[in-house]
């Protein structure tokens, strides 16, 4: 498989050879040092070789332990206690927080909203990204410029995206409703109707990430051996046919990667939902409150970190299950392809 090196590693290799005589500027190590000193040096050097790797990788592991792994475990601990944002830890309550969450209809609503927004964002996103990548995978004029252009939305922060689209999807004066009016469709209450709000929020996510994912898929497409297309063309396959039966099966691993990452991100949508209106709780009837937003409302509005932690754990499990289901589904769907 040919790797693509857009950063021109060939140039770097020559660059690295220039400082190659590492000790050129330094005096060579003293050759005539006494035998005892030499062994001391050697021992030091052996320890250097042995320990340095661990030293180099330790910052990551230490930090991950402190801000990644420990908090995840500690969340479980908080979730079985009464725990107020202000007062701190209270009594041990067992699974009471979980029961409370399960009995809250807003939890189920948040779960439904999250899945709905996730589906509305990930499916069109992957499909459009596939098409865009397919379009980019040709001998375009100004190739780099095209690739950069599809990445423009990526530089806009989710918070800004949410504010911009909150305006575009305005119920009374929004541009989207004005455009719909032009083609004779009645104004849609984007901030009232449940499904409409989900569409609006999914649009924000799609807008920001489709170009990014298209580039990832494009990279995979360019690694597909070109002679496969030639033989497909000889067999009489047209362009679309080639795309469906050569390109897509060949890039399946990358598609899997895109789907999994969009799952992990999509189930944690927060900013877009939080800033879709100026109240920030997901609508008057929580029409577009996502699970993460629900978690935040429990923890920082209702000041109950115990139940919020229970939600965090449930969401964690939910994401794991969802990612696994995705994995199995894609394996199944692609089963007839490359095998």
């Amino acid at each position, binding site marked *: 498989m040919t790797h693509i090196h857009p950063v021109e590693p060939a140039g770097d290799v020559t660059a690295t050879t220039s400082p190659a005589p590492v000790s050129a500027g330094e005096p060579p190590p003293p050759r005539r040092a006494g035998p005892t000193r030499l062994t001391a040096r050697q021992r030091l050097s052996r320890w250097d070789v042995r320990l340095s790797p661990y030293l180099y990788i330790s910052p990551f592991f230490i930090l991950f332990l402190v801000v990644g792994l420990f908090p995840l475990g500690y969340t479980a601990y908080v979730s079985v206690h009464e725990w107020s944002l202000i007062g701190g830890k209270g009594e041990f309550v067992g699974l009471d927080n979980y029961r409370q969450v399960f009995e809250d209809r807003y939890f189920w609503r948040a779960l439904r909203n999250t899945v709905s927004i996730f589906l509305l964002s990930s499916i069109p996103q992957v499909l459009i990204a596939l*098409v865009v990548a397919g379009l980019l995978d040709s001998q375009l004029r100004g190739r780099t410029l095209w690739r950069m252009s599809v990445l423009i939305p990526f530089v806009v922060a989710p918070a800004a995206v949410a504010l911009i689209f909150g305006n575009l999807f305005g119920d009374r004066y929004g541009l989207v409703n004005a455009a719909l009016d032009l083609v004779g469709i009645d104004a849609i209450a984007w901030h009232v109707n449940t499904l409409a709000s989900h569409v609006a929020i999914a649009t924000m996510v799609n807008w920001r990430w489709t170009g990014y994912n298209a580039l990832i898929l494009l990279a995979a497409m360019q690694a597909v051996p070109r002679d496969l297309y030639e033989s497909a063309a000889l067999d009489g396959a047209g362009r679309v046919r080639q795309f469906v039966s050569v390109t897509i099966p060949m890039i399946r691993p990358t598609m899997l990667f895109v789907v999994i990452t969009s799952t992990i991100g999509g189930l944690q949508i927060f900013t877009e939902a939080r800033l879709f209106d100026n109240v920030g709780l997901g609508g008057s009837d929580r029409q577009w409150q996502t699970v993460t937003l629900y978690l935040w409302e429990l923890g920082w509005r209702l000041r109950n970190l115990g139940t919020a932690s229970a939600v965090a754990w449930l969401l964690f499990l939910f994401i794991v299950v969802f990612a696994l289901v995705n994995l199995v589904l894609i394996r199944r769907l692609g089963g007839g392809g490359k095998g």
Partner: protein
Amino acid sequence: MNRRPGFLVYGLLTAFVVGSALPLYWSLIVGSHESDVVTRRVPPLWPGGHFFDNAQRVFETVEFWKALANSLVVSTVCATSVVFFCTLAGYAFAKLRFRGSTALMVFVVATLAVPTQLGVIPLFIQMAKLGWTGHLWAIMVPTLVTAFGVFFMRQYLVDAIPDELIEAARVDGCSMIRIFWNVAVPAARPAAAILWLFTFMTVWTDFFWPMIALPATNPTVQIALQQLQSGYYVDYSLVLAAAVLSTIPLLVLFVLTGRQLVAGIMQGAVKG
């Protein structure tokens, strides 16, 4: 594919790019007109002349200068720290032999799939205990070194440094850290630049954790945006002027380095 693309390909791509740029252009239009612009029956097609008035109001309404400075400090510190520590770790995984390296690398990749966002509650409790909530440290510490960075640098350095070079330096009596400094760091530069950019953008655009960990008086840019919007009545000229202002630094960065950014995304994809 080998054939020259036709009008259809260019047409579809153009449509996609227009769609990508339109919302940003719209925010410039609204942000450069007076506040009643959103109620007009026919929206203006061109930016107006009130952008600087609106920008001034942004700076008067919230502490936008402070927010910009905070975001700049946090993003720069995190990006620089990530590049340093991830190059160090990536180099160790790519080029040094040590017991358990494969298992540890698998662990690093596995952590990529862990949604650490869900650890915010204990993180918040910890930070509050340390008295760090409200301080920029609370934002910076969790992002000083990332799994993605370690993985990214490892993938790059595996091919970028010939093993003979390291052996030769060792024969010459170089210490490990000197080999890192004189061989690995120069070779890592292109990838390090990309990683720096990515981290800078990620930290700059982050919202969830800063919103929890920082008070209203010490915001980042994203939090300042939220403050502008959270009033009883949303003045969209004000809010979208701020949205444009908050995007300008990244747009400049994008114009200067978009080529590397594209390369980085595509490279990470193929090798990942």
